[in-house]
């Protein structure tokens, strides 16, 4: 009987511990005699550990960034500048230096995914859901939303192939797509063409480009 009473007390206390505020019972005082360390040592240790973990994560991420710091890029660019015509080779070569597991899904950089996307767009032209919002009256607002939907990290990740980024490509090259689709143009010509369009602008200021083209182009990003 007393066991049952104790168990019910403990179970009531356990639920009290989590969800209610009055959970310190008088029956079982905790002895504070003979403490070797400070009373709040677990609390202090926990918060210090948490702060260290967050700072460590930030520094690991920035150290990952620093391996691509500006001063290290000079030798790479000095090698590549005299060979503008073979950008295809350069990208592929550079890809192999890096981790293949990461870059493989992107099909060796912007060039291939650029054309890949154009090919997919050509195939998907008949799909009704792409045409639903083409004549939306709120392109400008939705364009702003496209960019508002991505935070800074995703704007960088858009360079790695986000679909918002894709819409930037599509918008920029929609007029060009009709031009290109009439010709069976090999890949490297597309790359040259895209670099004349200011690919860096697209890569590094996607939101600006998106907003700039709000009135002129349809919204692809909101067709989902």
């Amino acid at each position: 009987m007393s066991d049952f009473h104790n168990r019910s007390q403990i179970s009531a206390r356990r639920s009290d511990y989590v969800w209610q505020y009055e959970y310190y019972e008088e029956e079982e005082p905790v002895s504070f005699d003979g403490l070797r360390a400070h009373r709040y040592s677990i609390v202090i240790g926990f918060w210090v550990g948490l702060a260290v973990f967050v700072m460590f994560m930030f520094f690991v991420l920035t150290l990952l960034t620093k391996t691509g710091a500006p001063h290290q890029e000079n030798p790479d660019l000095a090698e590549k500048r005299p060979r503008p015509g073979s950008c295809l080779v350069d990208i592929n070569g550079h890809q192999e230096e890096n981790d293949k597991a990461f870059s493989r899904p992107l099909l060796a950089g912007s060039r291939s995914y650029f054309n890949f996307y154009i090919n997919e767009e050509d195939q998907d032209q008949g799909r009704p859901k792409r045409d639903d919002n083409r004549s939306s009256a709120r392109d400008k607002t939705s364009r702003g939303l496209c960019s508002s939907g991505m935070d800074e990290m995703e704007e960088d990740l858009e360079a790695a192939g986000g679909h918002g980024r894709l819409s930037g490509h599509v918008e920029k090259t929609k007029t060009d797509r009709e031009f290109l689709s009439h010709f069976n143009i090999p890949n490297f010509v597309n790359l040259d063409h895209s670099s004349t369009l200011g690919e860096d602008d697209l890569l590094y200021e996607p939101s600006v480009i998106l907003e700039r083209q709000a009135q002129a182009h349809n919204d692809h990003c909101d067709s989902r």
Partner: protein
Amino acid sequence: MNSGLMNQTDCPEVMVPFTVFFIVGVVSLAENLLVVVAVIRNRNLHSPMYCFICSLAAFNTIASVTKTWENLMIVLSDMGQLEKRGPSETKLDDVMDSLLCMSFVGSIFSFLAIAVDRYITIFHALRYHNIMTMQRTGVILGAIWTTCGMLAVLMVKFFDFKFVMICLVVFFIISLAVICFLYVYMFMLARIHAKNIAALPIGRKSRRQQRWSSIMRGALTLTILFGAFVVCWVPFFLHLIIIMVCPMNPYCECYRSLFQLHVVLMMSHALIDPAIYAFRRHQCTFVVCFIYP
């Protein structure tokens, strides 16, 4: 008896004033309600990404409402208007507990869904519209809400069993690991790809610095996102672990005395969630869409 009382006050429970709870609850309620209504009313925001953000905001709204209501009940019972152990109050307490449970588990599921959605956006960008259709999004959200509802009822009913708490803690740790892995993987891919782009014969120094600063911003965003999640949720779950592992240890007792602070931290995560996920630099654009659907 006297010595027992003196021992108990060595680590007195840290009380957070009710006004703090009310302010945090009301502000987070207003923010998350704004997000939910804006996403529902505006057709331009009917996309998988915004659906998951809306689901997260809905769970946070439920948590804020429940917590504020619970605070009100406690204030009333302290003033003597309500009986603390009456049958209707206990039932109401159970309902509020299960709602809170549902919203916490649902928030974690929503974070997972948002991370997976972003992962698919990056790594399967070309097939994103085939993989993440609105039907699948609806199915996923329906599954999340049903699971959370069922889990909430079960958890509160069977909270006496340690198994429930262990499951909750294990679920939280696994979600944390998955979210961390997904975001760091996405970040590393962004870094590598940006490096590849920088290797093109561009020749302008400002571009390289721009790229570098954009990746720094990405690192900061990722740290804020993951850091806020960890700082706000881990103390409460450590509290659960400590209840199970060392209920009688004095050091653990001192940690448990900070329970109300940990609850305030969890509520404040519901407050900063919209800022991290929904509101961006183009915050005014978001509000404009709300006003002009």
